[in-house]
């Protein structure tokens, strides 16, 4: 049973346009959400995160939006660049009562076309 779902396996966007990657979750105990980016032959690298007490977090071209009532978050990349082409993983964790692991979605492959 997938607790973190990324329903779009792939997304193609033109350079300069906005990329919107979506993520849904089912576990109401999740209170911290992260996005990781992964290039081929490399490990995932942290991109941006958001706590459940916020509904938006921005870092340069990257913005994450959280809608807790809908159990939905999205990552916006504006403007998209060819170097953004990678697989993006949405991840979540429960309130830290010890060592709670990250739960990942299956990922969305973003292709930014020049």
């Amino acid at each position: 049973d997938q607790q973190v779902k990324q329903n779009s396996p792939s997304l193609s966007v033109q350079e300069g346009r906005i990329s919107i990657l979506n993520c849904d979750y089912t576990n109401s105990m999740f209170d911290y959400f992260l996005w990781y980016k992964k290039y081929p032959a490399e490990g995932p690298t942290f991109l941006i995160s958001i706590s459940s007490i916020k509904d938006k977090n921005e870092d340069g071209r990257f913005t994450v939006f959280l809608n807790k009532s809908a159990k939905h978050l999205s990552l916006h990349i504006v403007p998209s660049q060819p170097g953004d082409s990678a697989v993006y993983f949405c991840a979540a964790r429960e309130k830290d009562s010890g060592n709670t692991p990250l739960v990942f979605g299956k990922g969305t492959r973003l292709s930014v076309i020049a």
Partner: protein
Amino acid sequence: DAGVTQSPTHLIKTRGQQVTLRCSPKSGHDTVSWYQQALGQGPQFIFQYYEEEERQRGNFPDRFSGHQFPNYSSELNVNALLLGDSALYLCASSFFRDRRATNEKLFFGSGTQLSVL
């Protein structure tokens, strides 16, 4: 500053064999987590080590075991390999104290690609 390093990068084994994967955490980190990423899937948590003890475990059978050494490096062992164990095995490190703020960001290595034939 060295990041998370894993060895080997690729490995081919046959069913029934045993395998050991190795990980050195990022400098200054004391906690190591292991994840399995099957083809087309996201990373799935196997277990986590801190102070040389397994602190938490995901839904993996006992064939998967690990170890952490005093220098914080770690090993993942898989016994009686199955075809379904073919995957990318990722090691991630962190600093235990950071998790108190719940904003812990894991630093991942490039992984070991294991193929079981």
